[in-house]
């Protein structure tokens, strides 16, 4: 009895009986894994730092005017990013304009409409589309899709919709339109998978509440599912946008390495990423290399902002929903 009382009133330190090796092992593992995590963080910082470091000669020479300067003159070493920024924005925005509704539609199909047995099969097939390497899509783009656009789709669009400036000009086998189509194909699988999971996550009782009122399936989707998943779908679209702006290889193969800012989708062009892929190996002067990496720095900043925007949306709205209910 008294021994028990002692145990309660005084807390004797339990001598650590574990072998030195054991305790060291714990510390060692903690330190090792911590170092790995620190290395990952350091890596990200290093990437940012290094890119700006290599670009520095061009940044100090051209300053921020680089961003608004149009024209890429390797002979006179006068470089500007505006053409590329325009090309990146145009191709990615158009690709998302097509990809976003298509992805939402596919997500809805896979979560609401598809016959049960077919659901996983079709979902897997759509995900397989994401697994196709970008260089293979670029290969297909340059040798199959490009000619198709140049000889069939382009002329058709020009014939019927040529009054719209977008479809002005001569259709070619390469250009903005082909790039937009290729980017769409790359973005849709990613965005639609996320949408599908979001739609599956809507609580059944919410769906039943709408249907019990006598709403049709589509009215239930429009009134309950889409509003409920608004934040996640936005984040998914933004993530898709991030993917599109960063795609170098497939775009460089099909966009035709053109110059200038044109309105027509049939024109050739270039994006920040594709310019890098095309010109880097042929870059002659140091200032040209530095300017190219300046492009990379701009791309990096845009990509980080886009990525962060998606993360913020997800985190803020997830918090809001649980806080509200």
């Amino acid at each position, binding site marked *: 009895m008294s021994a028990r009382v002692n145990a309660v009133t005084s807390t004797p330190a339990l001598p650590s009986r574990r072998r030195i090796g054991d305790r060291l092992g714990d510390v060692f593992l903690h330190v090792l894994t911590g170092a790995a995590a620190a290395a990952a963080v350091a890596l990200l910082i290093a990437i940012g730092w290094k890119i700006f470091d290599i670009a520095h000669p061009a940044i100090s020479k051209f300053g921020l005017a680089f961003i608004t300067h149009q024209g890429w003159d390797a002979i006179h070493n006068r470089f500007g990013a505006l053409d590329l920024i325009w090309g990146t924005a145009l191709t990615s925005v158009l690709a998302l304009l097509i990809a976003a509704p298509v992805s939402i539609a596919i997500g809805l199909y896979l979560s609401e409409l598809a016959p*049960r047995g077919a659901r996983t099969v079709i979902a897997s097939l759509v995900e397989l589309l994401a697994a196709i390497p970008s260089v293979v899509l670029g290969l297909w783009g340059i040798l199959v899709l490009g000619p198709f656009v140049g000889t069939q789709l382009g002329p058709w669009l020009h014939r019927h919709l040529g009054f719209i400036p977008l479809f002005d000009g001569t259709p070619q086998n390469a250009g903005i339109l082909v790039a937009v189509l290729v980017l769409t194909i790359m973005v849709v699988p990613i965005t639609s998978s996320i949408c599908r999971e979001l739609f599956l996550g809507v*609580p059944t*009782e*919410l*769906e*039943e*509440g*709408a*249907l*019990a*009122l*006598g*709403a*049709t399936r589509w*009215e239930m989707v429009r*009134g*309950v599912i889409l*509003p*409920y998943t608004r934040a996640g779908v936005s984040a998914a679209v933004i993530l898709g946008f991030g993917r599109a702006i960063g795609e170098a290889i497939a775009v460089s193969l099909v966009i035709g390495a053109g110059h200038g800012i044109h309105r027509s989708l049939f024109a050739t062009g270039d994006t920040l990423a594709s310019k890098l892929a095309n010109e880097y190996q042929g870059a002659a002067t140091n200032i040209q290399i530095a300017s190219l990496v300046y492009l990379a720095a701009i791309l990096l900043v845009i990509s980080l902002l886009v990525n962060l925007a998606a993360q913020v949306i997800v985190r803020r709205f997830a918090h809001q*929903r649980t806080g*509200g*209910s």
Partner: protein
Amino acid sequence: MEADTMQAVAPIEIAQAREVPLSAAGREAVFETRGLSASYGKALAVANVDLSIYRNLVTAIIGPSGCGKSTFLRSLNRMNDLIPSAKVEGEVLYHGQNIYGDGVDPVEVRRRIGMVFQKPNPFPKSIYDNVAWGLRVLGMKDDLDGRVERALTQAALWDEVRDRLKKSAFGLSGGQQQRLCLARAIAVEPDVVLLDEPASALDPIATSKIEDLMHELKNEYTLVIVTHNMQQAARVADMTAFFTLERTESGGHGVLVEYDETPKIFTQPADKRTEGYVTGRFG
């Protein structure tokens, strides 16, 4: 009945009923089920139910858990259609038409036969929009404000929310959310409202408010309520149907045992199984 049988069923105090229950005599049958059986895949949930629901009455479905009460209820507005493995046999006649017949549109069925669920499930919208959504979808947009106010008043919620109609429905308490779901259901002017254990997730005070509401609402609607709480049935229902679990080799399924006016079910049940249940001897 002999004195000792009266004694044995005393625990249920019929005096708790707020009003004298109404009788079915002379009333129109809103629903008539004939041989209704429902199963999920191979598992039979409820078998061969012949039951009539009468207009402007509160009908309670009671019985032990697992005896298919909810399944039966959901068969009345074709909510079981949403479950892929669900199958329904027999007929459910709504004003003489079989709701499972050819050419019948489940969307129309659910427009006329509304439902309130066990767990309050308001939409992630404002209080106003929760009620207005159904109205807009179904094209009842004239005097939207008036309709919303009427529905919320009938659900005894108007005074509590009139100043915050645009606020999120999630800001309401559980009991208020459930009354909101009720308001949203009656806003579209159904004929019948089905309630699947509407108060089981609520505290006693909220429960009491819902029960009070049912007495008012039955003047305009026909109500069918599933409840696992037989005192609630005794308080609220005019007619009561007792279901029980019939065991078979493959498990068991629910069957309708007895259906009669509430006082009779609780004081002079005709079936031994009913008696056993309402006296608390089992289940």
